[in-house]
Structure formats: C-alpha cells, structure tokens
C-alpha cells in the first residue's frame, strides 16, 4: 500500500511530461465558452486525426493564457478586446492583422469566429422608458440610479474606471455576481447592470441595451486563439477547424446561450445541433430534470475517482513530508520557527493565485498543479499537529524515554510517535477533510473532480448542477471523517484510547 502511492505519483508526473499527441482544447468558466469549446472539440474529433481533449471551465483568463503558452492547451475561444487589454496589456485595440502581428512572437495566432460579444450596460425596458434613458450619456443625468456590476467588469483596466471617467458617471456601483444581477435587476434592487451582447437573458428579462454613444466599448470579437504549431502538428484537424471561421453569428450564439441557460440543454448537445443541423437531437434533458439523475449522471464515478485521487495522493505526499517536518520542528529548536512559519504562510496563499503561479512555474495545467497545491495546503495541520503532539508529551515521560538509552529514531518509533499518534492522526483527518473541499477548485485548472459540476453550475447559474457537485463533496468529507474515527480505533494504541472514557 505504502509503495503504491509514490508509484502513482511518478506515473502522474510521467504522463504529464510525456503526454501522447493530443489536441487540447480549453474553455473558460462561462456558458458561451463552454459551448464554443464543445463546438471546437467536436469539429476536431470529426477530423479523425488526433486524440482531442476538452479541458473545460478553466478559470480565469490568466490561467488559460499561461496554459496556452506552456502548451498545456493548444487552442481556446477568446475575445479580441481581452487579448489586447488583458493579455498584451495594450491601451488601445487594433485590427485582426495587427493583433496577429503582436501574437506571432508569442507563438500564437487568432482566427475570428464571426460574432462580437462586447460589454454593454442594460436596464429593464419598462424602467428605461419610464426614465427616458436610451444611452449611457443619459445615465449621467440620473445620479439616483443603482448600478450592479460584475467584479470582473468593475476591476478590469478597460472596464468601470474608464467608463466612469469617459461618461462622467456619478455612481458608486455594487459588485454583484453576473448570474445574480439579472434577478436583482428584475426585482428592482438595482437599475443598471453590465451584460455581454450575446447574453441569453437579454430577451428573457426584456432588457434595453443602452447605446454606447461615445463608443467607449471596444469590439470584443470572438476568436480562436491557438498555438502556431497546431496547423503543423494536426493539419487535417486544423483544416476542419478553419471552416468555423466566420460561421457563428451573434444571433446564433445568443440562441445557443439561451438553450444552455434557459432550457438546461447540455453543451455537447448544443454543439451537435449546431454542427449537424436537422440531425434531430432530442431535447431529452429539458423534459424532466430529476435531481437524482443529475447527481448520478454518467460522469459521477469518473468525477468521484478524480476527486479521490486528488485528495489522497496529495494527502499521502503531505503525510510523508509533514510528519518528518513536524518531528524536526519538535527536535531541532533552530528549525522550529522557520518550518512552522513557512507552512503557515503557505496556508494563507489564495488558492487561485497559488494555482496560477504553479501553472506558470510548471508549464502545465491539470492534475499536477492541483495535486501540488492541495499537497501544500495539507501540510500545515499535519506538521503542526505532529509538532504539538510531540512537544506535549509530559516532560517526565520524555525524560524516562531518554534515560532508557534508546537512540533518537527508535525512541521516536517506539515511544514518542505512538504517544503523539492521536494528535498526528487528527491533523491528518483535518487535512483530508479540508482537502475534499479545496479539491473542488482543481476544476479551475482542468484537474476534474466534483468541482467540475460546481464550476459548470456557477457558469450556468444552475443551482441543481452546482448542488450535484457540492453534495457529493460534502458527503465525501463526512465519510472521510467517519472513516478516520474507525482508523483511530485501529491505529491509536489501546493504553491511550481507554483513557478517553
């Protein structure tokens, strides 16, 4: 059992380093990107040339760009404005030819898909009519209005700060999740929100898209952003993908977004219908979306296996390193503070920042960075509990152990570690349970697990899908907790257990 874990790790490392010829397609964590990712994946698969993998729902833009540059993914749907402002860090956008000139030195290029998805501000039709607002300039004259904007729009360079100064807007907007903003707008909690021009819900909620009379918002043209080596590596597949150029209109995209968000149609089915219209795909899912069927959908065991792999491989690594570190902290006073501070600081790193760093450091996305991040987060409880477990052994017992004349290692094995076993095991339990929760973020970097459903549910604003991921994760955490209680009885020496009562 003990030898299997390192073997598994090696295998993972090896497969990450020497992966077979696969075309890896990425997509972001929102409906449109999922759908485009599926369309790309199915188009590429139909060329019958390479193995095609869809690493879906990766987040955020920085992670995808790092993954593309490192070759962890080969292609993903992106928008021209985002490339200019966020990725190339320019202050102004140019045309496609200029964009490709900028991308070439990075080993990248872009092909347009045919539609624009630009930012816009919108209000309820009725409210806009009542106030006589039809353009963004009109808003400046209504300082009593409440704005609810997505965090991304609020914070990005080309977003709110520049819009506010361009139009001299007097507002102090509220940061709101995009999915929730529609509800808030509908219920009158806010008056204005930011939207994308292909949003599925524009029609559903009866929104008026405000005229950008000062032409503030640049064109966000949908593009295929790809590595320049793709056409050479997969010529047939690339030929097929190129046929998508200019094929998707704004109306078509909005309709597909609506199918996903309003009818709950799976992304794959939407892509099939788009690529083979009239193939007669049945909208089976939309008929009766039973929660149990959703919970135990065919990906359930696959996601469970991925989740368990993430939790236990990282935990095994943390146990193998954490216990020796805890021992060092207890027995080498000079190392105590350095060890405890470093593992403590690791714990405070935000998970997305850590993942983004690992991706650029390793040049890979997927399981490896997720495992390393989880491993690092699992260290603290194990190191600290090992240290306190050993330090809390009564001085008289420590002295009795020493006075027997046992060398340090046998003393640890025969006396100190068994005496600290309860504390150590409870540290491992804490790490395992925390890991089950933290492993859901692995989906952000394409490592799978229950987080995939949570991420998809968030993107679709679909709480059933979200719960179908969150509930198994919570159940797994409870089961682990129970499992460790049993392990307690088996691993903790009898003389220590009976004292409890």
């Amino acid at each position, binding site marked *: 059992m003990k030898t299997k874990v390192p073997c598994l790790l090696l295998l993972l490392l090896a497969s990450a380093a020497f992966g077979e010829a696969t075309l890896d397609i990425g997509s972001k964590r929102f409906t449109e990107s999922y759908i485009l990712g599926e369309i790309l994946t199915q188009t590429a698969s139909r060329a019958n040339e390479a193995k095609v993998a869809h690493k879906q729902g990766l987040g955020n833009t920085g992670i995808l760009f790092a993954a593309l540059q490192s070759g962890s993914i080969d292609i993903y749907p992106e928008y021209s404005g985002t490339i200019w402002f966020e990725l190339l860090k320019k202050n102004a956008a140019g045309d496609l030819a200029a964009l490709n000139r900028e991308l070439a030195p990075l080993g990248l290029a872009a092909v347009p898909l045919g539609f624009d998805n630009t930012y816009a501000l919108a209000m309820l039709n009725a409210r806009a009519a009542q106030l006589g607002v039809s353009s963004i300039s009109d808003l400046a004259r209504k300082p009593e209005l409440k704005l609810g904007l997505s965090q991304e729009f609020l914070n990005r360079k080309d977003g709110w700060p520049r819009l506010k100064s361009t139009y001299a807007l007097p507002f102090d907007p509220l940061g709101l999740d995009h999915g929730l903003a529609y509800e808030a707008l509908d219920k009158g909690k806010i008056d204005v929100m930011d939207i994308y021009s292909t949003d599925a819900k524009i029609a559903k909620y009866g929104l008026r898209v405000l005229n950008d009379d000062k032409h503030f918002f640049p064109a966000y043209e949908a593009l295929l952003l790809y590595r320049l080596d793709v056409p050479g590596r997969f010529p047939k597949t690339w030929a097929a993908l190129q046929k998508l150029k200019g094929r998707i209109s704004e109306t078509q995209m909005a309709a597909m977004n609506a199918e996903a968000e309003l009818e709950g149609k799976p992304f794959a089915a939407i892509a099939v219908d788009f690529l083979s219209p009239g193939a007669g795909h049945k909208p089976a899912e939309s008929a009766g979306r039973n929660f149990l069927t959703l919970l135990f959908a065919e990906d359930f065991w696959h996601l469970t296996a991925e989740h368990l792999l993430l939790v236990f491989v990282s935990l095994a690594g943390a146990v193998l390193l954490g216990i020796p570190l805890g021992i060092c902290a207890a027995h080498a006073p000079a190392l105590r503070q350095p060890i405890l501070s470093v593992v403590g600081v690791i714990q405070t790193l935000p998970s997305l920042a850590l993942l983004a760093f690992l991706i650029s450091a390793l040049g890979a996305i997927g399981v490896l960075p997720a495992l390393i991040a989880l491993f690092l987060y699992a260290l603290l409880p194990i190191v600290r509990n090992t240290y306190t477990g050993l330090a809390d052994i009564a001085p008289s017992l420590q002295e009795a152990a020493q006075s027997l004349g046992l060398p340090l290692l046998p003393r640890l094995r025969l006396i100190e570690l068994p*005496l600290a076993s309860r504390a150590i095991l409870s540290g491992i339990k804490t790490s395992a349970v925390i890991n089950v929760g933290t492993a859901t973020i692995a989906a952000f970097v394409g490592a799978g697990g229950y987080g995939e459903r949570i991420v998809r549910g968030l993107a679709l604003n679909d709480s059933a899908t979200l719960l179908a991921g969150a509930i198994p994760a919570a159940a797994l955490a409870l089961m682990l907790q129970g499992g460790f209680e049993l392990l307690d009885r088996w691993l903790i020496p009898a003389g220590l257990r009976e004292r409890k009562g």
Partner: protein
Amino acid sequence: MIAVENVCKSYGRQIALAPASLAFHAGTTALIGESGSGKSTLLRLMLGLIRPDSGRVVFNAEPLTADNVERVRHAIGYVIQDGGLFPHLTARDNVTLLARFLRRIPSWIDERVNHLADLVRLPPAVLSRHPHQLSGGQKQRVGLMRALMLDPEVLLLDEPLGALDPIVRSELQTELKGIFTHLGKTVILVTHDMNEAAYLASDIVLLRDGRVVQRGALDDLLHHPAEPYVRQFVHAQRSWVAEMP
C-alpha cells in the same frame, strides 16, 4: 562506581549545583535536601539528561560523553516519582522495551520478567495491564522492574515513593530495603524525607542551594553537624528518627 568531579550547573542566574565532587560505591546513598537543593539535578547530570557547565561525570573510570551516553544509560536503572511508565504500552512491554530493542533472547526476557515480578512482589496478571489500570504502588513496582531489567550496576531513584499514600509508602520502604540489600548494587536515592533516607541508606548527602552541606552516616549528621543548618534540617523531621534504635 559512578562519580561527579567538580560539576556545576546553573540555569541562567540560578545556581542549581555549585562545584561538587561525589563518588558513589556499592551500597545505598540518599541525596537529601529541600526542593531546589540540587539533588535531582545531580541525578540528571549522572544520566547525561543535562550537561554540566563544567566538570565531568565518570562511570567506571570512563568520562561520560555524547558517544558513550547510551551505553552508560543501559548500565543505569532510573526510577522516577510517578513511575514514568509509557501509557501506550502494557506493564510487561514497559519492562521489556529496552531488552527487546537490544534483541535479547525472548526466553531470557521471560525468565527475567518472572524473576523481577517475584522480587518486587507483583502478581504476574498485573503485567498485562496498561499503566492507567495500575495502582500507585503497582506503578512503582513496574517502574522498578523496568529499571532493573538489564541488571544495571547502578540504580538511581528520584523520589520513588513521593506520590504514594503513607501505608503503601511504608510497605514499599520495607520492601525496597530488602531489595537493595539483596541486590548489593550502587543505589542513589533522592528524597526530601529524613526518615526515608535514614531507614534506607547508610550514607546520607545533605544538599542546600546546590551545595553539599554534609556527607556521612545518620549518626554523623545527628551528633556532628557540619553547620547549624544540619541540626535544623534533621530536627525539623526528627520525631521518628529520634525513636529509632
């Protein structure tokens, strides 16, 4: 033979032991004094649990060093106040831990355990219990067995009876006296009880504030006190001593 030569030890400004030279031979010596007088420090120095600031510990003409400390500890049995038994091990496993680690023959181990249980008058059934299931007296008997397991040359006892109630205590004092006489080893006993020291030891070392005040037989301390403190200390506890034959 175990000896300390000019050892001193202080913790910060507090002097735990002023330079002292003491040699211990076969027979029982009691280290006596008030708490903080340095008697436990002396024992811990001899075991190498703490290092002297200066001076040295000598065991059978060999100075104690980091290299031989484990071997020396194997030749010294150590018993502490609450027995110092490891709670995760049964009484038997506590007694045999070191012998098993040193790969002594199992049949020898069994024989030795039976012999020692007999010596300290511990019913064999008690050996399969864990420390929390033992009475205070039983813990001390098991602790003594553990200390004697490898038949050490020297036996150090740090307030071995300090935590026991008076009846068990006096019973064990009687037994210990028999055991010490029977074994004929070098025994060094730390106690703060003059009666216990007088009863168990032929040689008494009185310490005060880390300094040896007087060493001698009970008679010397009673009749030829080195300084007024000796009289004061002995008198404070003399009621029973005075009645001794």
